[in-house]
């Protein structure tokens, strides 16, 4: 796949996007936290999940179907209740992607997708119970 350098998203843009409430934060970043989802680049699938109260806490995210079309996440009752998800079509699913500092292919965390209800604007990171899933699945070339 092609690669290109994208400039970091403007922090000012966070004012114009909805605030997402993560009552439990994320594992390793305990909550409650407020995040914003900023598009990265005008086209392309990338977004950045930015902590509105701590600019250093930001994660590159992408809908899992972009790289993993067969990926399915089974969300448990606790997660559904945590974000007030009533209709599956309200669920925005994203996976966190990281690229090693020295360059090289990126990996996606398929074990812990981020689920956001577009209706309640609450989000949480799931811990899926499929033991075949990895926190570091290489992005397909």
């Amino acid at each position, binding site marked *: 796949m092609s690669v290109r350098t994208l400039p970091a998203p403007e922090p000012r843009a966070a004012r114009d996007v909805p605030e997402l409430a993560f009552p439990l934060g994320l594992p390793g970043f305990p909550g409650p936290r407020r995040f914003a989802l900023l598009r990265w680049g005008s086209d392309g699938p990338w977004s950045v999940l930015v902590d509105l109260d701590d600019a250093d806490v930001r994660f590159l995210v992408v809908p899992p179907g972009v790289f993993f079309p067969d990926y399915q996440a089974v969300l448990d009752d606790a997660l559904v209740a*945590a974000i007030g998800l009533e209709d599956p079509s309200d669920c925005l699913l994203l996976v966190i992607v990281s690229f090693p500092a020295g360059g090289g292919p990126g990996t996606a965390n398929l074990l812990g997708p981020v689920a956001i209800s577009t209706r309640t604007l609450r989000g949480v990171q799931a811990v899926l119970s499929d033991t075949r899933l990895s926190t570091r699945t290489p992005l397909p070339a």
Partner: protein
Amino acid sequence: MLVLTRRKNESIVIGDGIVVTVLEVKGDQIRLGIAAPRDVPVHREELLAALEAANRSAVMPAGDAVLPTPRPAAGRTRRRAA
């Protein structure tokens, strides 16, 4: 850490309505049943620990990034320099 000893079919109650029951003991494996309110997350500790470590290492460094543009999965693609 509170340390309790339980036999099969005995339970522990935690807080307000969380019940942990020993369902089966087979060799060095213990099957536990957890009854908890719907909004209380229950996870295997090592999975949560893996997620914490993954999140901490996934935090984006400041500045620009070189990101791949996915192509439709039709035929081979060539890698181009950024």
